[in-house]
């Protein structure tokens, strides 16, 4: 009974958006309460839907309902539908997206409290964003999904650029925000264009973009597999853009120019997960080709590693978190890629061996989604903690902080929980999911290709680096001597901000245990001859714990994490170890490479400048000088010809008669010539 109203889930925030835009200005908090109410209502509806669906008879078959939207005519029409699609993955996504949004909107009441009229715009934009996110997850086809995908991109652009004019910190900051917003949009746009191209191929091959049509094995078998492979590569291009994967990852650190709540909501908890969601959602198509999955996995692994390196020496509290987000997204993609690789291999084989591989591989989906959810909680928490800190001290530079622990007890504690979770400290949520990720990568390396072993090694190193940089951040912020910004600290943040922190801290610690209650079954991936089914798998329960604690690699990661935390402690809390010794006081090549972000921004600039502006100036030159020059030249020639010819008119009447006689001669000659040519006379 609730499931028929799934369309309300994105519609409620949409209505809130309109309300905030039209009348929000006149309400307290400039429409903030509308936003909270909208998110909350969406969450409640989502919870009811999920409950009904997961306990219903049809589970785990997806519930699909759609109406015909319009038709692209052709010999066989291409029908575009509009509808909703509910399965385990949808439930998971809409639940945590709406839940976290609710918390962040509450937090915003405090965090954005002093922004005056701008709040109206803020709440409108975040509501619209929530529409996009929830719309994305309930969409029943790729095109509908793509629309919401782009709506989110727009909101991301707007919110990154929230302070792109009249920035409280002055002109440089607003210029920076404007540029960051543009960069975010354009870089993701590159991915989106690839995604769009992928959709063309899918639409061309399947004559539909409905999930239910596309995920039907019979339909998949009927299409050109090469084109399908190409389509999936292209669609993954969209993922690379949206989820900030290598090599399009560089927009995300810049995106930190937006308000911290935005970073928390969009650039950590939800929107950047859309890419991961897309891979998970498109799994039935992605696993048709092992090469694609290998590519996905490798991109994930490399991203996780590269991003972590850049977090090592960054001094900006939000940017460290941003790199960490990229790195963790890399984990998720790696898990999906590795698992999918095994499934793809298994589908290519006959009999029990293949079936075993498929079963093993489907753990990748669980790992990816599980990590996605956990990450949403702990990264949202971390960002909101950092927001609390920034709110208190008014700077993002960690060198100016230090010793904040005394002033901000709740913040420091909740942030510690978040850091422990992301560092993979045992029993914290991040620990469980990260281990599942590492395990599936290991397995893919073992049963599949050696590439995944390499990825596994990178992932292990990343785990170490993660522990180090997270605690470096925590120690620099909350421990040690008081920096000069700390002296201006207002103390702990208001309740509207600490309340969400506490709630999220609980989840950041405890969400990992959800796997005991069948979360893995909800997002499991099953391959049957007539369908690919998400959800309804066998719940692993304690089996997971047993598995984790019997594996020697688990202990390796725990040790690495502890070592990382330990080094950070020695360097930044106890200061017995001098970081300068490792980087030659910032002079080493590697240190410079990291501060220059591996030269990615320069590369982007060069490419966009040369391919964009450089060519444009050439085109403009051609346009003015050659194309328009021809037009002007022709008209100039006519006018000039008129001037010249008019000089023949000398005013001397005998010149006229001479010309007449000349004309007569010419006419006679012409007459003879024409007659000869035509055979007369």
């Amino acid at each position, binding site marked *: 009974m609730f499931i028929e109203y799934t369309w309300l889930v994105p519609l409620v925030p949409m209505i809130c958006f309109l309300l905030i835009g039209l009348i929000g200005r006149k309400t307290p908090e400039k429409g903030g309460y509308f936003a909270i109410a909208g998110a909350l209502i969406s969450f409640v509806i989502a919870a009811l839907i999920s409950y009904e669906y997961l306990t219903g008879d049809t589970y785990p078959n997806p519930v699909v309902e759609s109406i015909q939207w*319009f038709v692209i005519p052709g010999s066989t029409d291409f029908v575009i539908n509009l509808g909703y699609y509910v399965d385990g993955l949808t439930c998971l996504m809409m639940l945590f997206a709406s839940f976290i949004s609710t918390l962040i909107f509450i937090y915003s009441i405090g965090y954005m409290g002093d922004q005056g009229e701008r709040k109206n715009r803020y709440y409108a934009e975040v509501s619209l964003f929530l529409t996009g996110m929830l719309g994305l997850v309930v969409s029943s086809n790729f095109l509908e999904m793509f629309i919401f995908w782009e709506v989110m991109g727009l909101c991301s652009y707007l919110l990154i650029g929230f302070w792109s004019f009249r920035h409280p910190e002055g002109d440089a900051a607003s210029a920076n925000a404007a540029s960051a917003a*543009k960069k975010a949009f*354009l870089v993701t746009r590159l991915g989106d264009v*690839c995604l769009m191209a992928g959709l063309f191929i899918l639409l*061309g091959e399947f004559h539909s973009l409905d999930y239910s049509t596309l995920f039907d094995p019979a339909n998949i078998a009927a299409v050109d597999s090469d084109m399908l492979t190409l389509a999936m590569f292209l669609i993954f291009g969209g993922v690379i853009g949206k989820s900030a994967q290598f090599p399009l990852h560089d927009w995300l650190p810049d995106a930190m120019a937006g308000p911290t709540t935005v970073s928390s909501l969009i650039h950590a908890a939800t929107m950047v997960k859309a890419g991961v969601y897309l891979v998970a959602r498109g799994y039935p198509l992605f696993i048709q080709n092992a090469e694609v999955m290998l590519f996905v996995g490798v991109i994930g692994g490399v991203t996780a590693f590269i991003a972590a390196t850049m977090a090592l020496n960054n001094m900006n509290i939000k940017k460290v978190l941003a790199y960490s987000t990229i790195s963790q997204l890399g984990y998720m993609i790696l898990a999906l890629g590795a698992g999918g690789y095994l499934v793809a291999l298994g589908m290519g084989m006959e009999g029990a061996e293949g079936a075993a591989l498929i079963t093993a591989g489907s753990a990748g989906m669980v790992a990816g989604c599980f990590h996605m959810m956990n990450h949403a909680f702990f990264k949202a928490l971390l960002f909101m903690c950092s927001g609390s800190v920034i709110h208190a001290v008014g700077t993002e530079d960690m060198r100016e902080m230090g010793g904040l622990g005394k002033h901000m007890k709740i913040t420091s504690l909740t942030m510690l929980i978040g850091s422990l979770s992301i560092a993979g400290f045992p029993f914290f949520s991040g620990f469980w999911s990260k281990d599942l990720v590492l395990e599936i990568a290991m397995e893919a390396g073992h049963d599949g290709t050696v590439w995944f072993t390499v990825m596994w090694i990178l992932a292990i190193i990343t785990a170490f680096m993660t522990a180090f940089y997270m605690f470096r951040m925590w120690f620099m912020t909350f421990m040690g001597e008081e920096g000069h910004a700390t002296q201006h600290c207002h103390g702990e943040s208001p309740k509207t901000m600490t309340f969400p922190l506490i709630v999220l801290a609980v989840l950041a610690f405890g969400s990992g245990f959800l796997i005991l209650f069948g979360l893995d079954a909800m997002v499991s991936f099953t391959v049957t001859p007539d369908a690919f089914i998400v959800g309804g798998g066998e719940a692993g329960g304690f089996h997971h714990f047993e598995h984790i604690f019997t594996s020697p690699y688990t202990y390796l990661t725990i040790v690495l994490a502890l070592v990382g935390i330990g080094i950070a402690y020695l360097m930044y809390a106890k200061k017995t170890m001098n970081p300068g010794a490792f980087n030659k006081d910032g002079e080493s090549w590697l240190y410079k490479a990291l501060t220059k972000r591996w030269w990615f921004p320069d590369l982007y600039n060069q490419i966009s400048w040369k391919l964009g502006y450089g060519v*444009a100036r050439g085109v*403009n030159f051609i346009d003015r000088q050659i194309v328009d020059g021809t037009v002007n030249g022709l008209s100039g020639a006519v006018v000039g010809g008129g001037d010249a010819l008019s000089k023949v008119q000398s005013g001397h009447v005998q010149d006229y008669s001479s010309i007449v006689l000349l004309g007569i001669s010419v006419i006679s000659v012409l007459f003879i010539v024409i007659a000869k040519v035509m055979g007369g006379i």
Partner: protein
Amino acid sequence: MDIPILSLLIVVPLIGAIATLFMGGEKQKYAKVVAGVFSAITLVLALLVLFADDMGALAESYAWIQTSAIAISFTLAVDGLSVLMVFLTALLVLLVVILSAEEEDRPNYFHALLLAMEVGLMGVYMAADYFLFYVMWEVTLIPMYFMISWYGGPRRHYAAIKFFIYTHVASLVMLIGIFAMAFEAAQITGTGVVDFAFSVINPAIAGASEMFQVLVFALLFFGFAVKMPVVPFHTWLPDAHTEAPTGGSVLLAGVMLKMGSYGIIRICLEALPLGAEYWQWVVIAIALLSIVYGAYGCIAQTDLKKMVAFSSISHMGMVMLGIGCLSEAGVTFAIFQMFAHGLITAILFMVCGMTGHKVGTREIPLLGGLAGRMPMYALFMMIGFMASLGLPGLVGFWGEFPVIFAFYEFVIANDALWLILFCLLSLMLTAGYYLWAMQRTLFGPETTKIDLTHAHDVSKTEGIALAVLVVLVAFFGVWPDAALSFIEPYVSALANMGVVI
């Protein structure tokens, strides 16, 4: 219905134009009211046509010039292709009247020109006789010429005369094509009369020899291509737009450019299918060139309006691309893109045009941080830009995605998949120049290069005009079928004729 509603669509603005023209002196402040009333009546009539039960039954025909050799009639008809353009014309004229409510410089002439332009535009979109079509085609020129000359920017003389002569040359070339078709049709039908009616010429010529169609297609296509305009016949457009007043630009880009693509579909496709097939690759090459070249042109511009003008070239290239596919999908969405571009570009030109008198300059490097001082202006500009770069959920996306998809189908069938890269590149570039422009005008530190103390935000009347367009852009973005339902029967009729596949 007994009311000759299509004739009224021409007569009402004509009366309005004459009425406002003579409202000089003291009365001139009422000119805008009169113009508003007449354009509102026209819009109501257009809506009546739009929602008519049987559009075909509205057709009217009156004998005009009947000689022993020639039959010319005053024939008006609407179908799915034209009705959208009629609606768009009526709408934009009314909105421009609203937008120009504060025009102080000889408002009576301004509104007379607007309504005169509407006469021509309506005539072009409804004419079903080549003579009438051509007459109306040219009738649009003179008001536009004066609009640029009288109300334009510093280089208006150059721009106006360039616009006038360039497009006039093109229409004359088109006229030769029309002559050729008329005579050939007379010979084919053998009725002993050169009849200029669409209903006589189009079917007859569709059966003419390939050679003939190929040659005549070239003539007509040139005429229409200049109007659209496509590269390399586009250079009049940036100049005209840079100098034209806001209202003129809105109509020029919103509906006048569509005359070109309308002509291509109405004449080049309906009457010359073999020619279209022969030139298909050339059409596509020109379209791709326009799309990419226009987009690059935008990046290099420093004048906000000139940039939008170049973007029109790029987007009209998209229309051409859809037509060039000669497929049902391509033509359907090319028509949709015409409509979509009409709405979007109206917003863009309204916003960019008003920049000049709101801030004092349209030079992008001199602007910056306007969003702080002029939030509504920034909002409308952003919506316009976003719609134009094809943000899904707004109308521009439905003119772009399906057209490129149709082109994809075409290149797949012809083993030239790489051509799609041009389209994808243009999508990237489009986003690039719009965002870059926004970054430099709306965002960042507030400019100190110009005096912003007198800068004022969008006024109420301007806001109304813009809001109407924004609502429509969103409406058709969410429910494209509202427009597609008009287009599809027309295109399937084309398909039945074998013009498109």
